[in-house]
């Protein structure tokens, strides 16, 4: 099975009341990915830890997606990847891209943002999941022909990531800080 075949179609969340003018915040939990084209939706992840938060956004189609994955490669557990494709960066990415294109996003217009992958001290690879995740993501995107348009990976503090469908803004909230920071303004 190729990565592209191993895909599930997540539900397109569009629960917003058209009369409402406040954003609707929708949680992307661990090993989950969600997409939307509803301008009222803001997708946000649970705290990422050493896992990766990956956001994609097509400004023309106004389609965005956010993934919260734990580990780099489904080789670690193929059976689990079938049940939880978003647990692994590679299978999650395949699902994200397939669904985004179904919502009329175009790969050449898609911008990619990454956060998370916090690192402990000392460079001992068995214990540095965050560093490993970063390394794998960079190589993976390079192979797929994508660049990282903005990133805030590594560091010593847990963070969560959010993506606004209306604007494509990506914000990060670091544990212990009250105010979130922009990763990227379109």
């Amino acid at each position: 099975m190729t990565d592209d075949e191993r895909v599930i179609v997540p539900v397109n969340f569009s629960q917003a009341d058209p009369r409402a003018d406040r954003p609707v915040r929708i949680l992307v939990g661990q090993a989950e990915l969600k997409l939307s084209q509803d301008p009222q939706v803001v997708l946000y992840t649970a705290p990422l830890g050493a896992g990766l938060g990956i956001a994609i956004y097509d400004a023309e189609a106004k389609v965005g997606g956010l993934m919260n994955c734990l580990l780099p490669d489904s080789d670690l557990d193929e059976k689990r990847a079938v049940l939880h494709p978003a647990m692994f960066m590679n299978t999650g990415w395949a699902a994200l891209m397939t669904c985004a294109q179904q919502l009329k996003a175009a790969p050449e217009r898609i911008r990619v943002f990454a956060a998370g992958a916090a690192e402990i001290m000392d460079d001992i690879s068995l214990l540095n999941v965050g560093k490993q995740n970063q390394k794998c993501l960079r190589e993976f995107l390079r192979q797929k022909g994508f660049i990282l348009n903005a990133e805030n990976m590594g560091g010593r503090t847990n963070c969560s990531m959010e993506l606004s469908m209306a604007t494509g803004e990506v914000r990060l909230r670091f544990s212990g800080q009250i105010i979130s920071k922009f990763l990227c303004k379109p």
Partner: protein
Amino acid sequence: MQAISDYVRNLRYLPPAPRVVPELMRLINQPDADSSRIVNLISYDPSLTTNVLRISNSAYFGAATPISNLQDAVTRLGFQQIYQLVAAATGAKILGASQEGYGMEQGDLWKHSVTAAAAAQLIARQRNENENVVFTATLLHDIGKTILSDSLKGAYSKIVAETEGNGHSLLEAETKLFGINHAELGGQLLQHWNFSPDIIAAVSFHHTPKNARVYQRLASCVYMGNMVACFMGHGYGHVAFAQRARTEVLADLEMTERSVPQLMMDTFEQMQLIEAFFSSAVPSAA
């Protein structure tokens, strides 16, 4: 050591001693463990009884018919699970509050502790260590933070300077700034509360397992449980990842390249159980 004991004894905000947990562990470790004695022990604390019953009736544990009394709970869930419920209900009370000095909101320390305990228990099970001891030690491993938090308030920029600027771990920064760290303090507190030496050592040395000597393997289980919880997004507060990698843990626990990812995946499967412990045992203000 003397100075640290005085520090613990003289604190104004010492949490109330959990009397049931150490005694309950002793009870269930006896070969002829008697359920009525277990029920009597837990009943001694009415609010603990209420919390245990509440968790045992949560969605995760709940059965077709509700559990309405402790004897019922013990019979249906078994000693091991009852012990965990008691430990969780106790822990929630002590660990549920926010820890401002560390940048942890209400529930953060508790969520971290429960996730770490579940992960560490898996490790203990796989490596034939005493699960209850490891579960308890890991549940309480950061209890020292509840005491040190006040001292850290207002020291945020100094902590960050030590970790980012001087390359110290959070533990080393605490020692440098306050003369004591949360692991030592936690061990002292548990000693004050008459917990067993293995748990005291595993908590005192959960960042430096080599120093736990005869209890090194236990301390390594706690270390790894803590790490896995952090990797999975349940390590909260300022610079929570400013922790040292310890190679002795890799040897102690016979770890391979797949071990950590496997632990993360296995802990992921436990998240429902972890949520049950987390949300049912509501931390009280008292």
